[in-house]
């Protein structure tokens, strides 16, 4: 029995900002869900199930928030699942929702990722003292910087590649009304002169902390055929995990990432990613991860991904493979939603509904999320036509 074709019928986002003081957590989620339903031209009661994902419960201090959110998400009397796979959660949540359709268990599923960072205390959540290890990590940047440094020394990449990525993503964000950072007057020099946080990562090369929610309505083939607005069709989905510390691990280019990408490309029948994919939304919370992921995923040759940044290949303005036209995680980062935003933005591209940050004629796009110590990966490929 083959999988049911899955369509993305509707997408809803909230304007990402540092503080959404006008809505509660429930209000934030409902806003995104409402917009997704509106885009899908569906009513709450037509949804069969809800799948929600977010980063650790400790952030907002609400344990298992799917319980509190049951009413706000129209889930009373329906199944609701809560996915948690660290930073990749927005992506894996979309994949769990897709599997409910692919398996024919449900016909229409609402999926949502959110984070209300203004109501959370991430420092408290992440710094719960673990008595048996030394606490000197100073955050995710402290974890990923050494890995980035390794990439730089392996590939011989010029020092300012990271700044180029950050500048490009912030330029892209100006064309995305939902993005958090709208740095209208930002210059490249300002990016370079920004204070160094964890060498080689400067402040300007890190992601903001945002409030926000992103929701999608997924449906089966018939729903996709009947939809009033253009839909995106799922061509491939994949998830992979590996341990974050084992002998011989390649932390720069994790095997789990390579295998996950190979699987999703195989499912979608893609043999030349650079040529066949029109738009890419990948999870880049620290600038250098753009060239690193492009290599790991197979869009660029090993040690050469940085050239695609340098020569403008990844820019919306005329690049062959525009990356993160939405502004990416570097421009908006409600952690629990960030992965889903990547998946949703990929779908917006092939639906032709990405507005000012639309890649002309995009037919196939790639969505990606990662989490933990670069150990959890979730990816999907969506297309304007059925697979």
């Amino acid at each position, binding site marked *: 029995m083959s999988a049911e074709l899955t369509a993305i019928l509707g997408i809803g986002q909230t304007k990402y900002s540092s503080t959404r003081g006008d809505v509660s957590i429930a209000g934030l989620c409902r806003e995104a869900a409402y917009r997704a339903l509106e885009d899908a031209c569906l009513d709450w009661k037509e949804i069969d199930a809800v799948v929600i994902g977010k980063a650790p419960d400790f952030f907002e201090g609400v344990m*298992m928030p799917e*319980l*509190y959110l049951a009413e706000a998400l129209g889930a009373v009397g329906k199944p609701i699942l809560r996915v948690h796979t660290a930073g990749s959660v927005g992506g894996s949540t979309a994949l769990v929702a897709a599997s409910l359709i692919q398996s024919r268990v449900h016909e229409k599923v609402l999926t949502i990722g959110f984070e209300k960072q203004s109501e959370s205390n991430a420092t408290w959540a992440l710094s719960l003292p673990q008595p048996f290890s030394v606490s000197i990590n100073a955050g995710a940047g402290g974890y990923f910087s050494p890995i980035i440094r390794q990439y730089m020394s392996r590939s011989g990449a010029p020092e300012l590649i990271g700044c180029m990525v950050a500048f490009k993503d912030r330029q892209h964000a100006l064309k995305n009304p939902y993005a958090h950072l709208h740095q209208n007057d930002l210059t490249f020099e300002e990016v370079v002169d920004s204070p160094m946080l964890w060498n080689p990562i400067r402040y300007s090369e890190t992601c903001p902390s945002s409030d926000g929610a992103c929701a999608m309505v997924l449906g089966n083939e018939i729903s996709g055929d009947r939809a009033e607005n253009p839909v995106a069709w799922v061509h491939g989905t994949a998830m992979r995990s590996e341990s974050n510390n084992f002998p011989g691990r390649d932390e720069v280019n994790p095997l789990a990432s390579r295998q996950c990408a190979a699987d999703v490309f195989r499912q979608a029948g893609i043999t030349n990613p650079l040529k066949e994919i029109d738009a890419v939304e990948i999870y880049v919370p620290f600038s250098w991860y753009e060239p690193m992921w492009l290599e790991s995923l197979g869009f660029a040759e090993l040690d050469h991904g940085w050239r695609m940044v340098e020569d403008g290949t990844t820019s919306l303005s005329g690049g062959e493979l525009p990356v993160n036209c939405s502004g990416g995680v570097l421009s908006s980062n409600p952690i629990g939603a960030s992965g889903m935003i990547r998946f949703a933005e990929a779908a917006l591209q092939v639906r032709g509904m990405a507005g000012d940050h639309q890649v002309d004629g995009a037919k196939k796009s790639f969505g990606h999320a990662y989490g933990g110590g670069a150990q959890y990966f979730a990816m999907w490929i969506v297309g304007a036509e059925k697979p």
Partner: protein
Amino acid sequence: MSKSNSFRDVAVVSVASHQTKILSEVNEVQLMADLISKCRNSAGVTQEEIGFTCSGSSDFLAGQAFSFVHTLDSVGAFPPICESHVEMDGAFALYEAWVKLQIGEVDTALVYSYGKPSAGSIIDVLATQLDPYYVSPLWPDCFSLAALQARLLLDKGLITLEKMAEISMRSQKNGSDNPNAVRSSKDVLFENLMNEPPIVDPLRASDISEIADGGCAVILAAGDKAKSFCERPAWIKGIDHRVDSHTLGVRDLTRSPSAFLAAEKAGRNTDRLDLAEIHGMTSAQELILEKEFDLNEETMVNLSGGSLASDTMMASGLIRISEVASRIISGQADRGLAHATSGPCLQQNLVCILEGE
């Protein structure tokens, strides 16, 4: 859920679980490495052959954000595996794995969950599960909420203190055969249970589940694969889950409509059920569930002692499924209902109906 007979046949083929009052000789990672190995070995499958792995656990229970990351070590995720995680009881992880098997690309799945409630204070932890603006800041503890529910049932004449004590007695007697039972007693006396002073009126200590550390691992397999792993697989005939309103004042706490609905969608009909493993925090909740599931004297309820004997948050539901499955696999029973709950006062419920050939 659509017509159940159009779904792929998926069965539980092996289980392993362990519960104890306080886990001290090993940590969760070592416990799960042991249970997962036992479970795989008993089915005769290696991690590389397993198509999908899914687990359930809670950061708040562990006292650490991203706590599930460490436990991935128990699985042996090398080469990299296709793996997911829910911040819910393992029963819901099993549901996700069942869905994955329905798609048809993989034939086997590993499901596991664990909890170490002894590390923290369950009443403080569970208070954070409530509406963060209106309810949680009042810090209502889970036992008081369950007591409110029991009080409503008593005042409406739907249950009696005697009926509650009968449930407690059943749990303690049944549990005496279960090495995982933390509280059990072959010779427990009804009078003693009735005479216990309330901990949170009207709940006596024996009416409240016995918190325990532990974990559980389960292997699912589809079609012929299941038959190759196990002589008598426990086939999942139906599985469904539903949720009720969170706001306590909005719903009738003497009922659990989501439990009723989940059972209906999972295929609970008039066919005989040999056994049922139901997951409640109190004896009063077990009485509600027996009614929602329409269980009568034909069905043996909580032969394991149930969660009253040993309640490991995040694993109790998966353990209920494993208890029904293991009795079907061993030939002791032909058809059973397993249940898992989440949230205050039976807000969310999962029902799984299993059958042997």
